[in-house]
């Protein structure tokens, strides 16, 4: 127990402790009269970034502990969780890099939101490695509670408050559905551990009609619906555009990057590992088609940047669900590649959105003549938009290509067909960005402040990877193959 479990859990323990120390530091010093009530956001931000980086190191060093069930089968560590955790921490670190400058510009003196981001990161680590229904539910709940608060963290803005409230109500609803599903599963099998569930469900067919137990079917259905709520797949997406638009931009960036990784990892663990079955496949099939179509069509009517990005993320969730509903090793592998590239592109786009702000970069039309004022940034944004749309040599093309290939490989021709058609449609609004930047003459010329160093480095690295990914993709393939095998064998 003590020599293995706590050693393996050391990154998480470190992150929690660092967060709590940061919280105490902030509470003590931001209320001290002696230092004239310092805002502390920058200090806490840098220290938080540092602790996330150290956690990455700790996770990376912990690799010799290859496979282990921890704390009485509540958590698991294997290659899948190992790479997912590193990836999640990297994306959180990039969000924190973006937020360093943001809080200063907004004069938003809330170091608590950084503390909450760290806490939710920690909960997402637990979520990735959860191996029990209760542990999974608690991790999800911890994460969503953090999210409700940081969505509403900009209190003087009505939009932010509205976003927080909306997110809270719908999120609580979906958590309830998820919990109901878990209790159904527990009630009809008497087991909450994923491994035992997997053993029970091998060779057991859960069909809708003529089922041996409709309770299990209902339980799986409810769990699936709860998860689809959380990753904003289509029939359950209504909250996403409002929440993404209303919450502060940095929070939007965090929402559209980090939880996608952790929740998809958890879904893979639950559905591929435990409930491997064709029943949920139809559900995900439908959701995938619906979210691809809605992501492509609804985004066309949007004028606001954040709303458009929200719809685009819904569309991308649809593409990722293609890989999910295949259920084959290739499908899982392409899903993991897809989410890696999606996160790269999203980090890039949000770094640009956060960099372009004189007062507020809200409408797409504000981009006019960016090609003249900052040509390099304009090229970057157009590269990213082409990559989102899936134009060949860029990274976005690779991810979509493998997803469609996996769909063809398992015989889901309809999915691949609709995917191709919707990505052609979505080209329209992605390329509209490029058109506005290069060919529109704006009524008022907008000069943006130069961005800070951290964000420019982040942009440089992501652009490099997006552009040259196709030259050297083999490490990513090997990693994802290993992760997928780890889940399936």
């Amino acid at each position: 127990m003590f020599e293995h479990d706590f050693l393996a859990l050391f990154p998480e323990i470190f992150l929690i402790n660092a967060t709590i120390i940061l919280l105490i530091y902030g509470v003590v010093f931001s209320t001290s009269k002696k230092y004239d009530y310092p805002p502390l956001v920058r200090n806490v931000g840098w220290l938080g970034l540092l602790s996330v980086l150290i956690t990455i190191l700790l996770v990376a060093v912990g690799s010799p502990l290859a496979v282990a069930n921890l704390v009485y089968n509540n958590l698991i560590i294997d290659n899948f969780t190992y790479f997912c955790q590193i990836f999640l921490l990297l994306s959180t670190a990039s969000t924190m890099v973006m937020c360093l400058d943001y809080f200063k510009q907004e004069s938003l003196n809330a170091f608590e939101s950084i503390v909450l981001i760290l806490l939710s990161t920690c909960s997402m680590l637990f979520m990735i490695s959860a191996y029990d229904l209760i542990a999974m539910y608690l991790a999800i709940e911890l994460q969503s509670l953090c999210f409700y608060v940081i969505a509403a963290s900009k209190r003087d803005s009505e939009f932010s408050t509205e976003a927080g409230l909306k997110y809270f109500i719908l999120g609580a609803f979906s958590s309830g559905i998820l919990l109901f599903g878990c209790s159904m599963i527990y009630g009809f099998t008497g087991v909450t551990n994923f491994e035992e569930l997997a053993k029970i469900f091998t060779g057991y067919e859960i069909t809708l009609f003529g089922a041996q137990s409709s309770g299990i079917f209902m339980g799986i259905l409810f769990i699936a619906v709860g998860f689809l709520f959380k990753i904003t797949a289509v029939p359950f997406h209504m909250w996403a555009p409002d929440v993404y638009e209303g919450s502060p931009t940095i929070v939007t960036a965090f929402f559209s990057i980090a939880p996608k990784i952790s929740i998809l990892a958890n879904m893979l663990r639950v559905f591929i590992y435990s409930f491997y079955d064709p029943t949920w496949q139809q559900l995900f099939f439908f959701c995938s088609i619906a979210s691809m179509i809605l992501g492509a069509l609804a985004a066309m009517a949007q004028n606001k940047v954040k709303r458009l990005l929200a719809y685009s993320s819904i569309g991308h969730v649809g593409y990722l669900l293609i890989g999910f509903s295949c259920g084959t090793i290739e499908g899982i592998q392409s899903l993991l590649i897809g989410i890696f590239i999606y996160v790269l592109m999203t980090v890039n786009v949000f770094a640009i959105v956060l960099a372009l702000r004189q007062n507020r970069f809200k409408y797409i039309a504000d981009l006019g003549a960016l090609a003249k004022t900052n040509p390099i940034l304009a090229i970057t944004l157009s590269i990213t938009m082409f990559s989102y749309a899936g134009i060949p040599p860029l990274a976005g093309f690779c991810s979509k290509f493998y997803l469609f290939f996996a769909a063809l490989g398992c015989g889901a021709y309809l999915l691949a067909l609709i995917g191709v058609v919707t990505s052609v449609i979505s080209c329209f609004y992605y390329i509209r960005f490029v058109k506005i930047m290069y060919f529109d003459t704006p009524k008022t010329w907008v000069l943006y402040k130069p961005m800070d160093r951290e964000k420019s480095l982040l942009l440089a690295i992501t652009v490099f990877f997006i552009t040259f990914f196709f030259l050297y993709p083999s490490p990513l393939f090997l990693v994802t193959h290993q992760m997928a095998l780890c889940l399936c064998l």
Partner: protein
Amino acid sequence: MILFYVFVVLALVSGAMVIRAKNPVHSVLFLILVFCNTSGLLVLLGLDFFAMIFLVVYVGAIAVLFLFVVMMLHIRIEEIHENVLRYLPVGGIIGLIFLLEIFLMVDNDYIPILPTKLSATYLTYTVYAGKIHSWTNLETLGNLLYTTYFFLFLVSSLILLVALIGAIVLTMHKTTKVKRQDVFIQNAIDFQNTIKKVR
């Protein structure tokens, strides 16, 4: 058995009174009575811990919250003179469906898929009466919660921490305009010097 009937009858009657009471405050008070009776039923079932939690959570937190809300909203009594029978069809149908579902669930066999084809010849006779180590619910829960499930316990404590931070973040104003009391200064105030007679 008499106790059971007492609790059931009281719970049902006060449940009806929750709906029928004209005054919302009375209705909340009846709700508290319902909770007390159901926790009595839980005690009769041998679920002492659940009864305790039921009282603490529902009566201690939720019902008091309701009371506060009702008192603050200050609903007048005359407004609630609506015809109850209007809601009877819809409510009745929903209630019937709910009852039906509960019967379906109760009828369903729990743990159905594990194969349990035991032939009687392998069964041996054990006197279980001698093997009973009687633990109360509280002891069992404590033993499990602090050993096997300590991780879940810790994560729930983190959830509570987040709730605390969230409540503070969302409500505390850090501007200079807010009047705030300084605990130390208030404690240090000398009673003799607070009120002075001015001649």
